[in-house]
């Protein structure tokens, strides 16, 4: 009975769609043109404010950084310096550190966020309050979060006091890296939880009831109903977070100042461009970071993007 509902709706919906479509196609032309011209000023402004600095940065990265005098054209020298030249240890170390943050942070956030979303999806008294309070870590500015965690993770701080450990958190390589992952997960698991919650709420409860009637246990219901149907929302959340963590800057900058091998790529860029007054080298690093993030996003959408739509349709049919 529950599976019949979608098929009954479809012919009616499509007839209505076909009818208004003919009308809409006629109106679309002039509406579309108006919309186009309304967007043009914004696009022009964006081209100047966003496009020009990007192009300028890429252009500047092909020049040197002298102390006094004019910058000379040096071709790809800034890039080779970073990739296999004098700064290669620093660059690749920052590269793998960024990858480590991304993988561990996103993995933990999805795990914890999913659990939080499942809890928030159930109806219980005070659900509204829980949903709001879960957002609190996300609402706190990252800089404040970093200072908070720096305090808590001091050798004589509260984390060591409660767990009874004697770890010098920001003083050793792996503890410092995990400190950043913990702080980042604490801050953004709520964000993922909310995105997944939105996806969960779309799933009709009749599917669960039907499954229960058919004798499926909780785990079976989770893997065959919840997971496939929440996949689009989940993949969007994961993509957002991956791109975000690849750009991470403020947490390591404030928590550890990039010491102990915790410096991500963005920190290298800021250090070169602003601290060391080397705009050419900084622009090269910035372009490399951009290319890396673009590649990751491209692969992600390529490998998982087309599957998203197909999975949804398959899920609904079942």
């Amino acid at each position, binding site marked *: 009975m529950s599976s019949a509902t979608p098929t009954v709706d479809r012919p009616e919906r499509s007839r209505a769609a076909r009818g208004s479509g003919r009308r809409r196609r006629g109106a679309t032309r002039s509406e579309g043109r108006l919309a186009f011209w309304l967007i043009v000023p914004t696009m022009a402004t964006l*081209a*100047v404010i966003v*496009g020009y600095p990007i192009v300028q940065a890429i252009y500047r990265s092909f020049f040197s950084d002298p102390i006094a005098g004019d910058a000379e054209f040096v071709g790809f020298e800034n890039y080779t310096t970073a990739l296999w030249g004098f700064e290669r240890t620093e660059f690749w170390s920052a590269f793998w550190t960024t990858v480590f943050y991304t993988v561990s942070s996103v993995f933990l956030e999805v795990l914890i966020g999913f659990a939080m979303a499942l809890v928030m999806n159930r109806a219980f008294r005070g659900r509204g309050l829980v949903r709001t309070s879960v957002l609190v870590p996300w609402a706190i500015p990252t800089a404040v979060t970093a200072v908070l965690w720096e305090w808590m993770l001091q050798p004589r701080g509260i984390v060591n006091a409660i767990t009874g450990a004697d770890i*010098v958190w920001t003083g050793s390589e792996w503890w410092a890296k995990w400190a950043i992952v913990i702080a980042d997960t604490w801050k953004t698991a709520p964000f993922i939880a909310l995105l997944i919650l939105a996806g969960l709420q779309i799933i009709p409860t009749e599917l669960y009831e039907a499954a229960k009637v058919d004798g499926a246990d909780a785990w079976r219901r989770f893997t065959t109903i919840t997971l496939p149907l929440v996949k689009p929302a989940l993949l969007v959340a994961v993509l957002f977070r991956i791109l975000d963590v690849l750009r991470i800057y403020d947490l390591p900058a404030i928590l550890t100042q990039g*010491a*102990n091998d915790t410096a991500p790529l963005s920190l290298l860029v800021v250090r070169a461009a*602003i601290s060391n007054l080397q705009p050419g080298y900084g622009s090269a690093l910035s372009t490399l970071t951009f290319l890396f993030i673009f590649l990751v996003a491209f692969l992600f959408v390529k490998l998982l993007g087309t599957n998203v739509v197909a999975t949804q349709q398959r899920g609904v049919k079942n």
Partner: protein
Amino acid sequence: MRRRRMLTVSALTVAAALALSSCGGDGGDGDGAAAPAEIRGPITFAQGKDLSGELQKIIDGWNTAHANEKVKFLELPEAADEQRNSMVQNFQAKSDAYDVVATDVQWTAEFAARQWLEPLDEATFGGGDLLPAAVKTGKYDGKLYATPFNTNAAFLYYRKDLVPTPPATWAELTQACDSVAKTNKMGCYAGQFAQYEGLTVNASEVINSAGGELLKDSGKTVAVDTPEAREGLQFLVDGFEKGYIPKEAITFQEEESRRAFQQGQLLFLRNWPYVFGLANTKGPDSKIVGKFDIAPLPGKAGVGASTLGGYNLAVSSFSKNKATAKDFIKYMQSEESQQKVLTEMGFPPVLQSIYDDTALQGEFPYLKTLKEALLSAQARPASPNYNEVSLAIQTNAYAALQGQKSVDQAIKDMKAELERAAARN
């Protein structure tokens, strides 16, 4: 049809963007020409946040006497890095927004090499009663570009109730560690060892205190690859290894180390004069009120060399009213103003005579020791790429303190990285 329109619009947008960008590029060129040095008029004074609130009163003293050449105080952010960013942006735009700038002692070489500062007359601004080490920080390549406004040097704070005479050498310090600190079950010594500018200060201090050097010739020659430098760094590394520097000290900045000392966890502390007043304030924050005293830093064979802190005053090359700017700086260095710098603002002044004033010595008990420390102080290495230099020193010293690199390897790597920074000059 639609396609052609879209192409037209895109082409127009790109053209507009290029046109606008070309006019945004060299906007400051008109202001770049140097104004003749005799012009007078109102000027601006850019300095970091004035925590005492008293600087404006000193400036008002000038303003009442010079109605046509008023000084406007532009307050920059509190953090040194932010101040530097503001000044760098101002100079890169060749703007005349800042006439007189208060620069950290380590920024002189950086700004002077890029021709952002006006050279100053050495007779007026480099001699007289000014502290010699402080004057040196304003020089680059033989010329004077900045002159001292306030200064700073570090002390050894020690628990006089446990150690009646302060150690004069490192050997005496470690002796006190083995005997007194051990029996009282407390950490022995701490400075600032987190990986930040404070570590550059501490590392440069121990290397200088052992007779070593880091850079020479305004940052062009690297002189760190010596046995003395190794001995200096070894002092700190031994401290961590043998346990008389507590292992949590690897995360210490000024405040953390001060707190540890005030809670009675340390026998000796290396820190700036500001701790003196705070540690003597009765309350839950300090368990050592009246139980501590100060002494000059110990060195390998005798008195150690503290690092010089402080701020200098300089005139921007792009300033329009340079004559006024220079006279204003002279006023800020006058005895009257410098006395106010000490009594109202709480900073160490740059005139030697003020330290010998007995009345002030009574009010500020650390004045005599501070003068001793200032006379034997050495600045951190000067270089137009100071940030790169500082990073090279910090990262290698930090790795050595953590035991990740041997002292020998750390000094060798420091040398290589410093040479790279020097080559860019």
